[in-house]
């Protein structure tokens, strides 16, 4: 049986999805990137190899996320796509009539507006990461609440307090003030969710035409408090797909499936990659005043790719990159 592998290598998490020929998810994996995307990809591949059902082989692989080029170089990819397109493709697969996708990940958040199955507008957060997953993580840890219980705690709130959501630093000091005044923790947590939703709608979704059906994707969608806060602010039901945390990887797998349609070959190097030795080195090129920081990726001692230069002097010399 043919299967398709999608990898989403983000700043906070690295996700893998295995898709069967019918476009159904066989396995979804969610790992922490922890600042080491190479190790996260290898670890993900090793886990996936153990879970792949017998008789199933990878017919295509796709990568997305901020680490998509690196991941594609490592595993060999048939599709390399930005995370906006990957999320949109996955959302359309989930719900063909979807008109709005809210996505909040570890360090970025985006909104995608679709009409009649086509992306017509999108935005990503610019300078501020307030309200993304990392900030919620941090606040949960500070309040001593496991992040998994954050949402259900917010749901129990009787009277959410108002928290300043414009800036993560302001939000944190506001929360501390409210705590010191003795407000119940669930009211503070619910207030925080509302503040983050306000911030998202004012900054990321600024002026966008939000219409139902609305899908809420990304790791933060697991937080029921955030979902309720969105529903309260928007006045529409907000749908959280079953595989919300790995939608980027799901989109990458779907794009890989499209890319290899009608072909019987894939660039995927196989699960052996999880045992390869990868080396990276970087150096400053002295060719001109730009002093570009050139990075080299080596797998099993062989040069796989180079990038980071502006002029192409180094990056055009690619031996086995995903593009070949």
């Amino acid at each position, binding site marked *: 049986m043919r299967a398709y592998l999608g990898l989403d290598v983000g700043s906070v998490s690295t996700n893998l999805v295995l898709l069967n020929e019918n476009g159904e998810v066989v396995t979804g994996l969610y790992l922490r990137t922890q600042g080491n995307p190479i190790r996260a990809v290898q670890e993900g591949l090793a886990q996936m190899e153990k879970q792949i059902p017998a008789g199933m082989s990878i017919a295509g692989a796709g990568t997305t996320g901020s680490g998509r080029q690196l991941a594609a170089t490592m595993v060999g990819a048939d599709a390399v796509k930005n995370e*906006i397109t990957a999320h949109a493709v996955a959302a359309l697969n989930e719900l063909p009539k979807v008109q709005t996708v809210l996505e909040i990940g570890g360090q970025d958040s985006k909104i995608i507006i679709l009409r*009649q199955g086509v992306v*017509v507008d999108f935005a990503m957060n610019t300078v501020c990461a307030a309200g993304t997953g990392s900030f919620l993580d941090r606040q949960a840890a500070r309040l001593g609440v496991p992040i998994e219980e954050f949402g259900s705690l917010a749901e129990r709130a009787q009277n959410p307090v108002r928290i300043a959501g414009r800036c993560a630093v302001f939000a944190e000091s506001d929360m501390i003030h409210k705590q010191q005044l003795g407000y119940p923790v669930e009211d503070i947590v619910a207030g925080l969710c509302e503040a983050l939703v306000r911030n998202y709608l004012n900054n990321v979704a600024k002026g966008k035409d939000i219409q139902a059906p609305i899908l809420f994707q990304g790791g933060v969608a697991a937080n029921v408090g955030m979902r309720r806060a969105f529903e309260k602010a928007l006045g529409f039901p907000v749908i959280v797909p079953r595989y919300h945390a790995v939608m980027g990887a799901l989109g990458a797998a779907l794009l890989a499936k499209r890319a290899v349609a009608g072909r019987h070959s894939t660039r995927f190097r196989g699960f052996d990659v999880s045992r390869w030795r990868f080396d990276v080195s970087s150096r400053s090129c002295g060719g001109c005043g*730009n002093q570009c920081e050139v990075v080299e990726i080596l797998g099993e001692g062989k040069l796989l790719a180079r990038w980071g230069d502006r002029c192409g002097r180094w990056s055009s010399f690619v031996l086995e990159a995903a593009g070949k």
Partner: protein
Amino acid sequence: MRIGIPRALLYYHYHPLWSTFWRYLGLEVVSSPPTSKEILDQGVSAAVAEACLPVKVFYGHAFYLAPQVEFLFVPRLVSAETGTYICPKLMGLPDMLRHAGRKLPPLLSPTLNARCGPRAWEEALTRTARVLGFSAGQAKRACNAAAAEQARYTAKLGEGKTPLDILSEGKEDKEGGQDQNLGTQKALLLLGHPYNLFDDFISLGLLRRLRARGYRVTTAEMLSSRLIAEEAARLPKALFWSLGRLVLGAGSYYLRSGGVAGIIHVVSFGCGPDSLVGELLERKARRAGQLPFLLLTLDEHTGEGGMVTRLEAFLDMVEWRNAS
């Protein structure tokens, strides 16, 4: 005598006029090379933190030229056409530069203010030439030669060349230029201030990237000033920022007439006038609803990831729409 003209800010609009004027008078004109990391670092380390990136880049170019020339040409640009103003930071540029705490050669800073009359630029340049000992007659002839050269430049822009294409004419590593026959589906309107769009380093190669993806790039400089004035007159209130007027005029022209598959608006982080103009344009684009629109905010990034992700997603959106 050697005079230095920094390759920054409105150099991209007026370098034929300025260099021809001084060259005609027999001065040796030296321009700084295209922006590099060194030049940017120099500028960023000396400029006040609140200045926008283009101003910091200007500092870097001025410092680069300083040891090589006897004079630096840093005009005080107040107004380029009657009824409009240039950004106040450009008006105060010679003063800011003088107080940057670096050793600089004397600055030649004529006040170029078209609000003082149709011949105000010529009169100001003449006064500056007189200070250097040239006669009024010599200055007059230099002005005529400069105006003719500037007119030739404007004509070339009208043929669909960008300032960057014209600057690199006759150079070994010249810009590839573009296929003017590409139709609407393969044409994009690139809007923004010239010192962002045509500085390859600051724009992270935006123009090159779009052309490499097979697009013909149109900019506001390619439209006649009469057409821009007509479009600007449709606004409920006259817009007095001249660069904003150019952006908005070109944007509304294409929103009305079609002829491109999408619009990309590039702004500097923290640009005052663009916070208004960008918003006006985005609202206009959304109301018209026909063309995909992308707002790209540039600052000191040398990591291209954020820009590339947004750009790729935007081009996917354009291609997706074209296909549907």
